[in-house]
Every structure is written in structure tokens, then in C-alpha cells.
């Protein structure tokens, strides 16, 4: 009796859990077929198939420019955040950093402080420093935002890494720099790749700070999307959303296989 009640309980909870999974995925997935529909108003199920909205995206210089601008910022942010994050992670794990707890507080800072607060504050200061709408401004802002995730990913790999391997390299006559490049870096590479991907996605998708530090000529893709959603829900957005979802999926799977390949070799 009890046994049957237990298993029916488990089945109920499982059913709820699968329903939640559907809830989690369905809205985004529904957009995909709708982006191929021919109507001006999105319809489900779509009444036909067209690539018109995708063509519209690539024909509109505003969409293309903002996409290229976001791509450039995301790539630069990825590089800067990964390098800066690796250096400070090494200092945190291997170093004797004075005021270490202050650093740890600073690392979580951009996560604890709501993005809207950071965005307003950066808008104020960047405006005065003439950094709004500039690549430098965006990259610095997005780097600060991505660093916590980059650092936590790297700390996890560094803590898992056996420090005796570095000692072994030193005892073999490698200086600290060569020990890092020959031994440490190849072995924490999966973590570095994850961190870099996180930084890329965080920058490329970042809507709040981008909203405030964009200017009329230099808009990030999220800012452009925000404007379009606010003013006219055109099916071009569905095409953009579909491409972004695909890109995220691609980045996650690429990261997964890259890391698997690396940890195997």
C-alpha cells in the first residue's frame, strides 16, 4: 500500500517536472516556426514558409551594423575578460594577495549589484568621460559584468588542478612562466574555454547596460532589439530571436565538445 502511494507520488512529481521543462522551453521554441511564417502578424501554426524576415534582417543596415558592433564587442570582451580573469584567478589561488577578502568581495560585486544600478552609474560616468557608444566603453563595461563568471569558472578549474604538477614542472627546471604555459594552461584549458564562452555570451546578449551606454550611431544588437520590440513587433524580430537561440545552442555544444576533446587529449 505504502509502496504504491510512494510510486504514484514520484510519478506526480515527475509529471510536474516535465511540465515545467516544457514551460521553460516552449515559448522560445514556438518562435522558431513562426519566424518562417509569411504573415505580418505572427501566427501559430504559421500559414506557409518564407525566408522573407531573414532576408529583411540582412538587408537592413541598422540590424547588420548593430549585429557587427555587438560581435566586435563580444569578441573583445571575451579576450579581455579571459586574460584579466585568468591573471587575477592565479593571484587568488596561487598567490599571497594582500587583502584577499576584499578582492573576493569585489569579484562578486557586479553580480550582487543589480544591473540597472550599474547601468545608470556607468551611463553617468561614461557620459562625462565621452565613452558612451564607444567600443572601449562597451568592452570595459561588459568585461566588468563578465568577470565574476569568468573568475568563478577559472577558480573551479584551478582548485581542481593538482598544484604538485606545477611543483613537478619547477623541479624539472621550468621557470614559473614556462611551468604555467607548458603545464598549468594546457590542463586548465577546458575551464578557460568555458570562461571565454561565458564572457562572449554575456557580452553579446547583454541588454541593460547596452541600453544606456549606446548612442544613436553605435547600438548594440540587444539595444536595437529592445527598441524594435518596444515600437513594432515585426516578424524580423522572430528571425533574430531564432538566430540568437541557435547561436546560444551552438556555443554551448561547441564548448561542450571542445572541452571534452581537450580533456581527453
Amino acid at each position, binding site marked *: 500500500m*505504502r509502496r504504491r502511494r*510512494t510510486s504514484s*507520488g*514520484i510519478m506526480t512529481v515527475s509529471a510536474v*517536472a516535465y511540465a*515545467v521543462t516544457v514551460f521553460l522551453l516552449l*515559448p*522560445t521554441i*514556438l*518562435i522558431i516556426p*513562426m519566424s518562417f511564417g509569411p504573415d505580418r502578424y505572427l501566427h*501559430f501554426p504559421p500559414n506557409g514558409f518564407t525566408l522573407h524576415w531573414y532576408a529583411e534582417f540582412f538587408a537592413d543596415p541598422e540590424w547588420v551594423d548593430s549585429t557587427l558592433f555587438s560581435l566586435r564587442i563580444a569578441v573583445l570582451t571575451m579576450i579581455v575578460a579571459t586574460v584579466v*580573469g585568468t*591573471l*587575477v584567478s592565479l*593571484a587568488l589561488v*596561487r*598567490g599571497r*594577495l594582500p587583502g584577499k577578502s576584499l*578582492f573576493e568581495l*569585489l569579484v*562578486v*560585486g557586479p553580480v550582487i*549589484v*543589480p544591473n*540597472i*544600478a550599474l*547601468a*545608470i*552609474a*556607468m*551611463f*553617468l*560616468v561614461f557620459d562625462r568621460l565621452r565613452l558612451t557608444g564607444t567600443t572601449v566603453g562597451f568592452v*570595459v563595461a561588459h568585461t*566588468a*559584468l563578465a*568577470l565574476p*563568471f569568468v573568475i*568563478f*569558472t577559472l577558480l573551479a578549474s584551478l582548485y581542481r588542478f593538482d*598544484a604538485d604538477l*606545477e*611543483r613537478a614542472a*619547477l623541479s624539472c627546471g621550468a621557470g*614559473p*612562466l614556462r611551468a604555467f604555459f607548458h603545464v598549468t594552461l594546457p590542463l586548465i584549458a577546458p575551464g578557460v574555454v*568555458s570562461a571565454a564562452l*561565458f564572457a562572449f555570451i554575456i557580452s*553579446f*546578449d547583454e541588454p541593460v547596460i547596452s*541600453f*544606456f551606454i549606446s548612442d544613436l550611431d553605435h547600438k548594440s544588437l540587444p539595444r536595437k*532589439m*529592445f527598441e524594435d*520590440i518596444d515600437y513594432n513587433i515585426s516578424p524580423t524580430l522572430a528571425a533574430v*530571436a531564432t538566430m540568437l537561440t541557435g547561436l*546560444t545552442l551552438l556555443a*554551448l555544444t561547441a*564548448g561542450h565538445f571542445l572541452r571534452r576533446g581537450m580533456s581527453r587529449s
Partner: protein
Amino acid sequence: MTKRPTSFTLGGRTYSPAASLLLATPFILVMILAFLLPLFTLLHESLSVPKFNLDNYARVFDQEVYLRVMLRTLRISALVTIAALLLGYPLAWLIARSRGLLLGLLLIAVLLPLWTSVLVRTYAWLVLLQRNGVVNQILTALGLVDAPVQFLYTEGAVVLAMSHVLLPFMVLPLYAALRGIPDDYMRAAQVLGAGGFAAFRHVVLPLTLPGVASGCLMVFLLALGFFVTPALVGGPQQMMLATLVQQQVTELLDWPFSGAIIGVLLAFVLCLVLIFNRLIRLDRFVGQV
């Protein structure tokens, strides 16, 4: 005797303080330029313009409009947190029980939304909920309603969309907590006479409370300052704190007052974080991809 080395040569494990600081310098510079300096300037502005006093802060609490926005922000954030917990716990439990392919698929189901643009997911809700959106199309087709229902710009829509957007931040800490419980505990509880639900209530639930607290805090904090989803799904009718600040800045250029609102928000967030200091575990969000 040669001098004690000051650079990278100090052993395999430990870089010297000087070398460590050198490694941390780029980080410090970025954080000063994009975190400390902006926040300091804004808060300074809120306290010193037009005069050095607390007038800007008094204004936040004086006017009913602003109080109503703050209360709505707290209420929506709380509702979103509860909704995310109720939806997230069963899912986290299912993931923790799964193995192999199912585990991978379920994890992707949580991680894909986490890393998909907030704008894309918010846009999806707009497409679903607008007057001629998918939900109204279905309702009309089924003959359940005569005229399209107004979903957008209601509090319910905001709570629904935000719960959806923030759900991964609840599921991942819960999953981490549940995965940390050995199956033996549950079996032991059952052997000792606890039925399925009793075993859950007395063994699993207490052990996952830190995960519950961590997920709730994370979702609540994110909800408090959330901008995109409330702005687009809630509109001016359901204005939350972030939209209020945006309006003050972009339309009225009132920096000192915006700074004061941010100051209040920050003080509140800091209190929460200090109280629940140990529960912020960022690694849970990046560890398992």
C-alpha cells in the same frame, strides 16, 4: 646570502604579495573604471546635488507614486521567487534523479534558457500574450473567449514572464543541493520506516534548505533590479523600480534623484546579502555546463 625573491619565483604554490598584486592589477583597473568609480560617483551625486543633504532620499519616501512602485517591486519579486521555487523544486529533483541521456537533455533544458538572451525570451512572451498573440488565437479558436483577453501590462503577465526568465537561477542551486545527497540517505530513511513523503520531508528537504535559500535569494535579488522584462511586458502600468529609474534618467535627466533610488535599492540588496552572506554561490551557475 641572496635576497628573498620578490617576483614570480616564490615557489610553486605561492606567488609573492608583489607578484600577486601585479597579476591582479588589470582586474583592479577594470573594476575601478566600470564598477567602483561609477557607483561612487552616482551615490555621491545623490547626496551632494543640489546640496549636501538627504533631500533626494527623502523624496523617494515622500511621494506616494514612488512608494507604490517600490511596494510593487517587492511584491512582484516575492511572487516571482515563490513561483520559481514551486516550479523549480520538482524539476531540480527530477534532474538529480536522472542519469545518462535524460540528465543531459534536462540540463540543456535549464542551461539553454539561462544563456539565451533575456530579450529573446521576453519577446517570446510578448508574442504569446499580446492581443492578437498565440494564446488569444488559441482561446478564440477554441471558442473559450469572444474577444481577445488583455494579458500584457498586467501584474500576472509580469510575474509569469519573470518567473520563466529567472527559473534557471532557482533550479541550478537546488539541483546542486539535491545531487549532494547520497541515495543511501533516502533508502536509510525508508528502511527506518519513513514513507516516501515523510523521508522527503524529514531527510531531503532539510538537507536542501541551503540550496533553497541560495536559489530564492538569487532570484529575489535579480527580480528587484530587473529591467527588460518588466519594462516590456509590464509597461508603464506595472512600473517597477528599474523602469522608474530609467524614466528619471532618460526622460527627466534627474541624476541625483535616480542616484537616491539606486542608493535605496543598493542598501536593501546589501542588507539581504549581508544576512545571507554564505548563500551566494556563483559557482553553481557556471560549474556544470
